[in-house]
């Protein structure tokens, strides 16, 4: 590359964050953003808290790369996604902090369930009813959702939970009492269960 090309390629510095925020404020005012999200630092890494029109639609754990989460939301809901704050995201982040600190037992948030449907949604609704500090087996949850034999399908529903932590799929265990798999890793699952046992 010649010297002139190097000089030409030098990118000027801009106050990008200010410009970006001004743009997104206007986009929100014109209702052009379908999904808003913020990154949230937690004891288990950076989570994404994502809100749609109906409330919190998705929470992703640190194991899920941000680009993949956004690509999935683009396919399933809308590509009009931007990183910006909204009241319900702030509320969710406050409750997540309180939960991780051990001072909150029940989440009280507007939830948008549109990323799950049918039997999978039934399983997750039943999972949401498991109290803080308690657990259930995959087959119990399948039974409460109406199909006691659909243990494998219940496992799939829990593995694809769009709202982990808030819908406590970590409270569902294997029948032999082992924790079983968790999208955030089995260590995170064990840690959440232990924290809840201590404080229940």
């Amino acid at each position: 590359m010649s010297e002139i090309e190097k000089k030409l390629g030098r990118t000027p510095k801009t106050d990008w964050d200010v410009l970006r925020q001004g743009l997104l404020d206007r986009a929100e005012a014109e209702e052009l953003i379908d999904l808003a999200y913020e990154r949230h630092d937690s004891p288990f890494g950076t989570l994404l808290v994502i809100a749609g029109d109906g409330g919190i639609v998705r929470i992703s754990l640190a194991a899920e790369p941000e680009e993949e989460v956004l690509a999935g939301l683009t396919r399933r809901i809308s590509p009009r996604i931007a990183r910006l704050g909204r009241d319900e995201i702030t509320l969710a982040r406050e409750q997540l902090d309180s939960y991780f600190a051990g001072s909150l037992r029940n989440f009280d948030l507007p939830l948008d369930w549109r990323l799950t449907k049918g039997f999978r949604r039934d399983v997750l609704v039943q999972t949401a009813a498991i109290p803080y500090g308690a657990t259930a087996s995959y087959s119990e949850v399948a039974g409460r959702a109406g199909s006691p034999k659909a243990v494998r399908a219940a496992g799939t529903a829990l593995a694809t939970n769009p709202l982990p932590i808030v819908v406590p799929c970590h409270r569902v265990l294997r029948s032999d009492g082992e924790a079983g798999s968790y999208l955030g890793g089995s260590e995170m699952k064990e840690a959440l269960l232990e924290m809840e046992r201590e404080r229940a």
Partner: protein
Amino acid sequence: MTAKTQNPGGLPPFELALEEHGPLVYSWLIARVGPDRADDVFQETMLSALGVWEKAAVESVRAWLFTIARNKAVDDDRRASRRPLLQEETDSWPSAEAVEWLEDPVWDEVRGLPEKQRIAVTLRYRGDLSHREVGSAMKISEAAARRNVHEGLKTLRERIGDE
């Protein structure tokens, strides 16, 4: 949720496109309309794109955004020309204040290039577009874009030398 895809145009999440292409589009607008008007024209550009985001089917998101930016800049020129105090801005490209803002004197020379070379060189180096994307944004062929960039660089070398 409907069964059919929500994003027929196949565009990426707006957030990713904003972070990947936004600073380049903005830089180009700084050079094109000057720092005073660049913020507003940039926002107009991105809002216009966002308005059709799930419908647009484009080959290159970046070239598409630059095309919108160019059109918005032309719109803004027309508005500026109706503002008597700012008339002189439309005579020069990029404006004097934009050149002052750009940190290297090489851009003074870019300003003196013939229009097509000037635009091609700016898109290629200020906007970091490929020759193909430059062609797409200028509505000329990739070969013509490459030629304009090449001629522009040749002229710059003649005028200021290349160590």
